[in-house]
């Protein structure tokens, strides 16, 4: 598994992803700068980390989505390469056209930072094979714009094609009400591209890899990726 983590001006969780990938794969990912035009030769996985790229100016992820390196990321995805966008990385993926829909301001207008349960919808993808389908995991969320929305047709297609990766839920796996932190449609916390090789998600699995800081439920995602290539 050769991975690369892209840093934009204002990214702030790139080191957390580096740590999670190194722990899972035994190999530190390459660090790639947003103004670069190429990914390292033989890159299997590209990660767009969390943060506030370009200070969230214009729209979250809008300017990063058009950074020079994103052409290489789009080409990588078109070749069937793996791409993971976490939090601001998810916002960048929708702004760059790699995933459909958009992340709007949280329904209650508040930045939400807390532990959050998720249901793993399927475990037959490169990102979730170390989990069970339907498993409830506890990770954390920290965002002000995580309210996923798309037009009715797109939502129907995502649901019909099994492209919802994670949904917000409570500890028992029940959806709705207070277990949805941001008003996201159908409790969507993460979605896949049509070939399930691109994943965008608002929660932070990379921060739950050490029992010292609250749990290790995030490890499964990186362990899955470690097995995938």
């Amino acid at each position, binding site marked *: 598994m050769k991975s690369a983590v892209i840093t934009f001006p204002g990214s702030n969780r790139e080191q957390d992803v580096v740590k999670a990938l190194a722990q899972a794969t035994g190999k530190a990912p390459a660090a790639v700068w947003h103004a670069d035009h190429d990914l390292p030769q033989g890159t299997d996985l590209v990660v767009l980390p969390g943060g506030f790229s370009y200070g969230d100016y*214009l*729209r979250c992820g*809008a*300017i990063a989505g*058009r950074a020079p390196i994103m052409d290489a990321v789009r080409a990588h995805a078109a070749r069937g390469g793996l791409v993971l966008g976490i939090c601001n990385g998810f916002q960048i993926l*929708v*702004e760059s056209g790699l995933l*459909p*829909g*958009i992340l*709007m*301001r*949280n*329904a*209650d*207008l508040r930045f939400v930072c807390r532990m959050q349960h998720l249901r793993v919808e399927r475990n037959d993808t490169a990102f979730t094979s170390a989990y069970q389908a339907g498993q409830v995991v506890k990770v954390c969320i920290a965002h002000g714009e995580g*309210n996923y*929305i*798309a*037009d009715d047709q797109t939502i129907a297609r995502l649901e019909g094609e099994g492209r919802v990766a994670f949904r917000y839920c409570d500890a028992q796996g029940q959806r709705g009400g207070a277990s949805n932190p941001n008003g996201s449609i159908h409790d969507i916390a993460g979605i896949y591209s049509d070939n399930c090789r691109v994943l965008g998600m608002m929660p932070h699995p990379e921060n739950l890899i050490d029992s010292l800081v609250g749990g290790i439920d995030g490890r499964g995602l990186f362990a899955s990726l470690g097995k995938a290539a």
Partner: protein
Amino acid sequence: MKARVTVTLKNGVLDPQGKAIESALHSLGIDGVASVRQGKVFDIVLDTADKAAAEAALKQAGEKLLANTVIENYKVDLVD
């Protein structure tokens, strides 16, 4: 040549910020406000005098960056 690009949310797209502004106007006691939708204005100076070239550039700017056409519309006005 100067231009103003106005970006607004499409009809039907939920606008929680507009809603918050609306209720703030109500709580200020400003009467007669039925609803508020928030948008963005970009004042752009172009280094061309060619109207057609300016319009083409601004259309590209609107499509590629200024608006996310999934949820937003944009309008170009040349001010010259």
